[in-house]
């Protein structure tokens, strides 16, 4: 090895060890304090000898009443402590919808349909460019109604898609967990763009004959981050109702939202959104703790709607010709970056180890008081989490987050591969990504997972889960038949 690079290498190694040493010192500071203290105490006790200890005890002159009071106080304090702790919320299991091969949309078919349906060649060109750079693969699926030339978005077709995806996911979940429909106490469904009457939650109650005193909620219009909102709502309800099961369904129904106009800002969802659904079973029953996969640690919600730009960034409207579609503004990525920063600022203190928090605090103080030009310190979230599930909203979103959080390609692999295999399935994409990580055998007991969702509003929501049971492969899920082919290399541009 030539002499010139060697100093860099050795200096970076030295820096790495310094960082490691700093982290160990600060994160285990209390242990380091406690150990000498315990040692000194032990030495003292040994020195005193048993007789002296008994004499010391007798000199306190404690009689029965005082001992009883102290015992009572201890019991009282511990009871208050245990009762006021929030109920743990367990994720027993979840199931994702696996689309059938007949609904597959190869690039060539998509482009052909686009050319046959759209009159404006510029729209066709634009969609071609989007698809080439999208990061999607050849196996993503659209609902049957979108395969027609031209697509046929009737209400009946939308309901049919909803029934197909939701009931498949719930049937899978029931098979995996053995939960009986009568045991479900809370039902939360989120689907942003399709909201019929009776609601999708009523549809589920009807199909599975759920109890008449079920607490059901149907969230619509809340965008792609609504999955984590539903989890948050279920968690809050599980704090109020003890010994309950909550079924959360996250989905997006594509059928009614095919945009047939020519506005470029509204053509993106056509190219990226695909069929998907996830059914999640949460519980606060103590006996579920034995077989649950994850425990919910934190949910952090950030809403930037107060800012007009953020509010109008993903906006559903009609274009000049009367076709309705979802318009995405050009500064979407900038707004997403800001929302993420807000969310990180809130979640950082909850999850980051003390070492990172101190560094961040000192850098912040330094920037304010000493020199504005110091680079802001980006905390290393890789120390707080083993796995990251970033909403597969599009290649740009994943790239942006990878850059902002300084993640390695392995950390964003689940997101990229989910985008490739399933497309942007909106709120359920986080669950497909989690399933990917499990199917690869990477989920061990004690691992922490960070799910980040973005959506219209503009909202950025995070959920933190802790794995409480190592998950063995093979995992029965949407990746079962293709996990051996992943990860794949996704080229920057696929020439169509």
């Amino acid at each position, binding site marked *: 090895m030539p002499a010139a690079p060697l100093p860099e290498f050795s200096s970076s190694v030295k820096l790495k060890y310094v960082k490691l040493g700093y982290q160990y010192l600060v994160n285990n500071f209390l242990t380091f304090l406690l150990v000498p203290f315990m040692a000194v105490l032990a030495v003292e006790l040994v020195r005193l000898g048993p007789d002296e200890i008994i004499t010391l005890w007798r000199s306190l002159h404690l009689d029965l009443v005082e001992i009883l009071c102290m015992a009572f106080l201890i019991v009282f304090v511990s009871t208050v402590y245990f009762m006021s702790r929030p109920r743990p919320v367990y994720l027993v299991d979840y199931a994702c919808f696996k689309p*059938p*091969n*007949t609904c*597959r*949309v*190869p*690039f*060539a*078919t998509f*482009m*052909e*349909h686009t*050319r*046959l349906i759209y009159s404006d060649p510029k729209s066709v060109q634009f969609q071609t460019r989007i698809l080439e750079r999208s990061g999607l693969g*050849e*196996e993503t699926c659209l609902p049957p109604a979108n*395969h*027609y*030339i031209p697509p*046929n978005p009737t209400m009946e077709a939308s309901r049919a898609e909803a029934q197909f995806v939701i009931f498949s996911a719930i049937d899978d979940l029931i098979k995996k967990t053995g939960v009986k429909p009568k045991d479900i106490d809370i039902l939360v469904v989120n689907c942003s763009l399709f909201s019929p009457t009776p609601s999708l939650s009523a549809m589920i109650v009807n199909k599975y004959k759920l109890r008449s005193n079920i607490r059901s909620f149907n969230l619509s219009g809340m965008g792609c981050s609504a999955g984590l909102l539903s989890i948050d709502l279920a968690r809050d309800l599980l704090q109020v109702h003890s010994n309950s099961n909550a079924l959360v369904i996250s989905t997006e129904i594509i059928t009614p939202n095919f945009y047939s106009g020519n506005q470029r800002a509204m053509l993106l969802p056509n190219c990226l959104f695909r069929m998907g659904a996830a059914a999640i079973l949460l519980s606060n029953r103590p006996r579920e703790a034995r077989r649950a996969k994850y425990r919910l640690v934190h949910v952090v919600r950030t809403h930037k709607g107060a800012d007009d730009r953020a509010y109008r960034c993903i906006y559903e409207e009609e274009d000049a010709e009367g076709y309705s579609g979802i318009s995405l503004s050009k500064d979407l990525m900038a707004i997403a970056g800001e929302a993420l920063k807000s969310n990180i600022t809130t979640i950082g203190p909850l999850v980051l180890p003390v070492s990172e928090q101190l560094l961040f605090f000192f850098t912040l103080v330094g920037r304010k008081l000493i020199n504005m030009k110091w680079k802001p310190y980006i905390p290393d979230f890789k120390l707080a989490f083993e796995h990251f599930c970033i909403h597969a909203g599009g290649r740009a979103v994943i790239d942006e987050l990878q850059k902002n959080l300084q993640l390695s390609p392995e950390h964003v692999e689940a997101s990229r591969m989910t985008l490739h295999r399933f497309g942007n399935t909106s709120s359920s994409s986080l669950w497909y990504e989690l399933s990917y990580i499990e199917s690869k055998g990477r989920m061990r007991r004690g691992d922490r997972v960070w799910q980040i969702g973005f959506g219209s509003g503009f909202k950025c929501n995070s959920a933190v889960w802790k794995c409480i049971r190592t998950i063995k492969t093979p995992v029965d899920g949407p990746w079962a038949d293709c996990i051996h082919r992943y990860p794949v290399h996704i080229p920057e541009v696929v020439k169509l």
Partner: protein
Amino acid sequence: MTAGGRRVTVYAKSTAVSGTPVRPGKTYPLSSLDHLMGRHTLHLVFYYRPGPTLDRDGLKESLSEVLSHYPAATGRLSRGEDGGWIVKCNDAGVRLLDARANVTLEEWLGSASAEEEMELAYWEPMGDDPSIWSPYYIQITEFEDKAFAIGLSCTHMHADPTCATLLVRAWADSHRRACIAYAPFLHPPAFLPRPDPRPSHPLLSLKSSSAPFASNSKMSSATFRFSDLAVKSLLADLQPDASPFSALAALFWSRIARAAGVPPGPGELTLVVDVRKRMHAPLPHGFYGNALHFSRARADLAAGVAHVVDELGRHVAGLPEDEVWAAAEWAHERRHRGEEAFQMYGPELTCFALDHLMAYGAAFEKEGEGGRPAHVSYRVGGAEGEGLVVVLPAAEEGAARTVMVTLPEEVAKTICRDDAILRYGPTVMFAGRV
């Protein structure tokens, strides 16, 4: 013809894709024999009686599965470097039409005309842009009594009747969850010229150089279903040890010549035979593409039908392989000269031997006879002129045959009333103008 509007409505058009993605970058060059058929199209209709597993969604699912085996069928045509056609296997899929008919199957088979039958096999000719044009159109028509008709239209460049039939048969096998009996075999070098090519094809040379046929008379079509007993009695009358094809071809040739006013005497008939199994190194049944040979048979019509039967039988049995190779080489040379396709079926009277087809084995239902097609029709588009006689298998086993004729209107009318043919009691179906 029926009064009061159409009985078949096509209500949706979509694209059926294969279940597994095609490996990117795959191409399949069409052979020279394929290029020859550029002017023609093929239209097949398979009729099925109602059955427990016969429903539209199930059919679409099994179609997806079977398309995974046919990457050439789901591709798109584009011009290659030498100006010829190649198929880019880009996984685009085949067009699928959904239709319904407001009659029952029996009513339809009893009363539909030739023109109506064409409504069961939707077809769109290639427009300006072959890259978004599907070479295959599959139509699934549901009858009132839940019977189905599966219509397949394709360009003759992609497939000959054997190939198209085996695609439907593979679909049926896949639907029944059986393994595909005659898997497709893609082998572009099958008809490449021999090391010392001897190209020659007098018939086709003549056809290609003659002026295109200017048709001023409309064509009509009719289907004759001969039962096993009928064909046996025909053979007994003519030539007991001849093949049913020779007997029927001879019968129809002599009757058509008479009806068209051709003076009795020595005549010639163009015969089209499938050469997959006639080569020294036979091609598998599933060979994808065209493997047809056009040749001229001679017989003296004045000497009686029995004599014609003999001549035809001898011609078909004795087809030399050399001729097939010479024809392929002639086609190859012609393609390299960059010349356009010309009319192959016609304008002279042509007879097509298709009774080897395994069409009636394409059963979508599992058990018994119920799954086999009630009837199968074949038509060739672009066969104007003196007409085309196609000898096909029939639903009944044994010597039963179906003969479909496409003739000038007047001749067709005469043939439908011809005593010599009606003597054998055929069921006449789908008569009328095309």
